[in-house]
């Protein structure tokens, strides 16, 4: 006697799940954070070095450096920046989707140490004499951009300008950005492109707190200078030790190709399961759809960044999720061949396959966890996806499949139809 209740529940469950998935697809897709290998962008690993000899690179110095980098990235307006400290003295900066890579790299790594020196490169004033956050962009009468600053102490400026005036004819106040030992005004002045920002002549003592820098700026350069001065100088020196940049087109192509491969793979796996396990395969395919939705949902919910290796891990995870189905369905087939009824074969198969599935998945989780802890950047993205996939597998491929198939089995509609599991009647023990 076929019970209608469980069959009704089965379809009701499917419809509910279908509606949930249909409604969550859009928000999930819209909220996926694409990594820079899919979106284009760049990633730099900086080695943090001391600015002055004797400066210690400790946790405080590192977090100050990260804070400064953060401020500068805000200037760039990158939507999903990722900054992390590695190995104690390295900072990894990932900027997916950044438009002007060259500008970003310059903004990031400059220490933005503003200094005023005389023609003999003697230090007169530096950034610490400025009122923080008061740099502005203004335009002169020629409509050329300039940057205006405010000094803390007008009398200091007065004494500096007095000194400079006395150096006539070398009465220049050289404004340097990131002056390094060995740089010299005389050498740079002879060149076409100067390393210093500007070198205005000072012909009288100036007792004022307002200073302006007018160089040959473009509007953007003036804005960047203003932002750099306002976000403060970097407390450390950053040296690029690793960098990778991906063209936007490249990223899009990679994503398209990989998703295409994944879609065919999913279809092929479903076909394989249907042919081999019939109804069991159908249930496995259904749970596979749920699996994919849940994995993506969890991934987006964790605000993890989807990278190319992440997509590969997800596709691989599909194969592994199906493994849980295969282990269970093979067990059920074994039991059916042994002459059990569909109901008891289903129960015994589930019970006996569970430890195997647990062991198999836990060992993969061990490997993925090690990758997650030790891995960096691309490897980490892969490990996160592998971990999520394995955990979700338990929910969907083990319990999800069990519930769905269980409803059908308990309706007794499958009784005496072992072929629905891919078992031939002649293979069953005791049959001729």
């Amino acid at each position, binding site marked *: 006697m076929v019970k209608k209740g469980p069959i009704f529940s089965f379809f009701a469950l499917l419809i509910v799940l279908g509606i949930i998935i249909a409604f969550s697809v859009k928000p999930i897709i819209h909220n996926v954070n694409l990594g820079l290998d899919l979106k284009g962008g760049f990633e730099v690993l900086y080695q943090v070095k001391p600015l002055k000899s004797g400066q210690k690179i400790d946790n405080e110095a590192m977090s100050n450096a990260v804070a400064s980098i953060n401020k500068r990235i805000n200037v760039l307006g990158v939507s999903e920046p990722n900054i992390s400290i590695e190995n104690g003295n390295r900072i990894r900066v990932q900027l997916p989707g950044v438009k002007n890579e060259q500008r970003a790299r310059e903004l990031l*790594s400059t220490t933005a140490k503003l200094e005023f020196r005389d023609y003999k490169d003697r230090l007169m004033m530096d950034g610490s004499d400025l009122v923080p956050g008061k740099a502005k962009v203004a335009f002169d009468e020629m409509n050329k951009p300039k940057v205006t600053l405010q000094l803390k102490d007008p009398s200091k400026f007065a004494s500096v300008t007095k000194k400079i005036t006395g150096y006539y004819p070398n009465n220049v106040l050289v404004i340097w950005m990131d002056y390094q030992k060995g740089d010299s005004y005389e050498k740079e002045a002879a060149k076409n492109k100067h390393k210093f920002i500007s070198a205005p002549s000072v012909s009288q003592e100036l007792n004022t707190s307002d200073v302006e820098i007018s160089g040959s700026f473009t509007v953007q350069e003036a804005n960047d200078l203003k932002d750099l001065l306002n976000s403060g100088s970097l407390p450390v020196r950053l040296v690029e030790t690793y960098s990778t940049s991906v*063209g936007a087109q490249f990223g899009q192509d*990679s994503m398209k190709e990989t998703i295409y491969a994944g879609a065919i793979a999913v279809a092929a796996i479903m076909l394989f399961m249907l042919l081999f396990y019939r109804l069991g395969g159908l249930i496995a395919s259904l749970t596979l759809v749920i699996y994919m939705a849940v994995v993506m949902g969890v991934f987006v919910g964790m605000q993890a960044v989807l990278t190319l290796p992440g997509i590969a891990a997800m596709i*691989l995870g599909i194969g592994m999720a199906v493994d849980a189905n295969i282990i269970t369905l093979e067990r059920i087939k074994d039991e059916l061949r042994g002459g059990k009824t569909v109901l008891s074969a289903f129960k015994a198969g589930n019970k006996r396959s569970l430890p195997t599935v647990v062991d*198999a998945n836990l060992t993969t989780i061990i490997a993925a966890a090690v990758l997650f802890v*030790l891995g960096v950047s691309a490897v980490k993205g892969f490990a996160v996806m592998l971990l999520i996939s394995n955990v979700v597998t338990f929910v969907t491929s083990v319990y999800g499949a069990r519930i769905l198939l269980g409803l059908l089995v308990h309706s007794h509609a499958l009784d005496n139809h072992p072929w629905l599991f891919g078992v031939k009647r002649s293979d069953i023990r005791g049959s001729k």
Partner: protein
Amino acid sequence: MDLNDKMNYKHYNKFYDRLDFMKHRNLFFTISVALIILGIVSLFIFKLNLGIDFSSGTRVDVQSTQPISVEKVDKAFRAMNYEPERPVLSGTHNNIATVRINKELDHNQIAELKSKMKDQFGIEPNVSTVSPQVGRDLAKNGLYALIIASVFIIIYVWVRFEFLQGLTAVLALIHDAFFIVTVFSLLHIEVDILFISAILTIIGYSINDTIVTFDRVRENIKISRKRLSTIEEFGDIVNLSIRETLTRSLNTVITVLIPVVLLLIFGSESIRTFTIALFVGLLCGVYSSICIACPLWAVLKVNYLKRRKRRRTVSTQPQN
């Protein structure tokens, strides 16, 4: 169902019901030892083609809207005074060229290179640079990851099964990992950072087959309710367990091979080495789980039991 019943019961009539995995164990062991020797020799002669991730330098992926030639790419780089290694073409229409320069470019040089390549080929290229220190750290990290994962897996299998099974399972895994390295060395495929992910995935995945088979061995030993001691007795159990789980082992590897092969054919160039490593590892993994791990365990187990017996008889002999 009792064990004799199970063994005499040849109802399945599968093609592999007559396969004797234990009988050919020495052949399997010989093949694997030969492969390992081949790998060691290959590592000495051909070494590994380490990508910039593990050494240092710059890697540029030039992409074009049309097919490109090695000469054209080479010329473009020489025009900028770089000494590129021979570009490697890839992509469905040979429209991608990967170029390595044994020099770290700074960000100004990268910017210049990118804009020149974009002008010439139409699409912005990918550029990566690695300094020697970072490369060394990555390689070291990878090795640590392998060792730590192996130790944890041995412990896990030891707790869930027995030490000898944990040991043979990990031996089989190292065998798989080394085989991937061998193939990469022989074919001179570039090893990049994702290679380590691939090896760890294989380790995490390939152990599934071994575990599932050991799981069945454990179950069948329980069913037999006998004290097994000879290699023949263990052999029967091992053969039966492998046969019983063979369909599952093969089907799983097929369902994972499907996406890997499709990624290999249609997937992005950027993860090619990764998928090649997975492909090789999966095939080797299913072989080692079936033909190496179980038979090796049976041999080790029988040896261990014999030694223990000898020790017991020695210690129980009356002292003169």
